[in-house]
């Protein structure tokens, strides 16, 4: 009995000490693992108190849980190693107060609760497992199943939130579901703001046949209907816009408008108002680009190639004096502009 009490006290003190260490260290990983060993010490206390199943379970579960918590802390904190001596404390008074209240509550429960009679004899470990199993599948089943279902719901919700929808224009990477099979990924990079659109201007104002838009045919966007290859954008005239008038009806392009509009603006300037209709047109052109974004290398190559091609072959339309994107060297853009002289 005295040995039992000694070990109980020792593990209890270890648990408290590791709990203190959690707040004393600057390193997130140390902090998480200190919490882990605090919990492990509590598991050891269970073992000392002859609650074998609970103890083993506590020791097992905490190792993985705290490790996962550690990686989240490393991912989200600015100074996970604590080497920068950055002060990450905030709401100090509130947390101190909340901690004091919670501690007082726990102590009050410990002293005020009616704990019932102590059992005369502790059942053997195997019997404990059996009784716990009966409890979990009998009286407490509803509670545990509800808790399990709640956690499952939370997991699914968290995954749903984490899976990024592919049509967000600011993010080049699509969700995992959209990854992999797109033939023409790279243009997601173009979505990163208004800077890249000199290339898009090319697209908007010029010969789409050169772009091979068949590759843009991603999830739900039936570009066969748009038939870009057929549009004679070289004309830059009314035919083009007539040809594009049909595009207004095509759905599924939500979220690409930004992209498309920007391109259109450029095209519009150069075309001197001819492009009355080309909002739709531009939107269509680039809709596919937003969908990709999984293959940056490809995107870069594509962008460069297109830029060059257009400058040589049809280089006009886009306002090339805009801030040049990283993808195509600015000098080449200017050159193209001068050559084409529009």
């Amino acid at each position, binding site marked *: 009995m005295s040995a039992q009490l000694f070990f109980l006290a020792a593990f209890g003190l270890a648990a408290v000490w590791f709990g203190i260490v959690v707040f004393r260290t600057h390193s997130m990983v140390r902090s998480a693992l200190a919490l882990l060993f605090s919990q492990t010490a509590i598991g050891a206390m269970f073992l000392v108190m002859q609650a074998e199943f609970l103890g083993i379970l506590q020791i097992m579960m905490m190792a993985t849980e705290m490790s996962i918590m550690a990686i989240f802390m490393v991912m989200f904190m600015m100074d996970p*190693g604590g080497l920068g001596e950055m002060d990450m404390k905030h709401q100090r008074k509130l947390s101190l107060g909340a901690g004091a209240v919670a501690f007082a509550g726990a102590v009050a429960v410990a002293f005020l609760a009616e704990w019932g009679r102590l059992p005369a004899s502790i059942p053997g470990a195997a019997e404990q497992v059996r009784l716990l199993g009966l409890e979990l599948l009998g009286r407490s089943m509803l509670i545990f199943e509800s808790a399990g279902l709640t956690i499952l719901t939370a997991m699914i919700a968290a995954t749903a939130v984490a899976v990024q929808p592919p049509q967000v224009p600011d993010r080049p990477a699509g969700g995992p579901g959209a990854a992999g099979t797109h033939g023409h990924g790279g243009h997601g990079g173009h979505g990163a703001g208004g800077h890249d659109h000199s290339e898009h201007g090319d697209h908007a104002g010029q010969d789409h046949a050169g772009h091979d838009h068949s590759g843009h045919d991603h999830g739900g966007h039936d570009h066969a209907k748009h038939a870009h290859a057929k549009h004679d954008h070289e004309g830059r005239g009314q035919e083009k816009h007539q040809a594009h008038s049909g595009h207004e009806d095509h759905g599924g392009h939500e979220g690409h408008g930004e992209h498309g509009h920007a391109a259109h603006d450029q095209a519009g300037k150069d075309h001197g108002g001819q492009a009355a209709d080309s909002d739709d047109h531009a939107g269509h052109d680039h809709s596919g680009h937003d969908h990709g974004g999984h293959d940056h290398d490809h995107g870069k190559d594509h962008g460069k190639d297109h830029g060059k091609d257009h400058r040589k072959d049809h280089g006009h339309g886009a306002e090339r004096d805009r801030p040049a994107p990283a993808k195509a060297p600015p000098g080449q853009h200017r050159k193209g502009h001068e050559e084409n002289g529009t």
Partner: protein
Amino acid sequence: MTGLVLAVALGLGAYGVAVLEHWASTGRFRVAGPAISALALLGRESILPRKPDRLFFETAPVLLLVAAVLSLAVLPLAPGLIAADLATGALAFNAALAYVLVALIMAGWGPDGAYGMIGGWRFLGQLIAYAMLVVMPITAVAMRAESLSTVQIVASQEGLWNIAYQPLGFALFALAGMAMAFAPPFDLPTAAGDLAGGVEAEYTGVRRLVFRLGRMVLILSVASAMTVFYLGGWLGPWLPGWAWSAAKILAVASAMLLGGRMVPRLREAALLEWSWKLGIPLALANIFIVGLIVLVVPT
């Protein structure tokens, strides 16, 4: 006395696994090899990286060794020849090996080096893949034995070994066990080719020796678990129980080490995908099938 026998068995087993690993990776069977390597490591300087998390760096190899030894403690070599016959032995095995993860994260974080850090966190992803596939087949094993005690589990295989009773569970457990021991096709945290040793990379001298020893004991532990849970433990004709156990454990360990060398290293993403999309449904099916057999077939 039992303790002494078990300690000697542990030492011999770890040494045997080291010999087997060398044989599996180079094709040369050198009985003295591990001893020479160990002496060489003892003689070398144990370099401390420039800005380590010293506590983690020093603790990690020891924790790996301790976790592996504790997991072996609940596995019987023969009737009565077991360090701790817990009523929750099958669970305790998992609980001990969960700290392999903690040790590898410490070993990865501690030295403040890129390769080690990637290796350590990689193993966390690997755990997400294998953890369920270790626990769920053991659940089915415990269902048949109607006990979590490892001794009871061996006794339950008297008529038919679990490898025949639940082959699906064995296949899943074998693969997941190899992932748990980061044995070759699953050696993502050490990954000699792409991570230059990963979590082991910054360890030299005696620290590396302890790390390697922990790894050997870990492989021994996983092989012992396969023997106890699926291959009838000490059961077998003619020979004494401990001899059967030893033979089976070494056979499993060599199959594990040799088989793993034949397959290219998996990518982290592929491992996770297969584990969750294929492995877990199969493990659930295994539990269901075993449940049916347990209920329908009279014992």
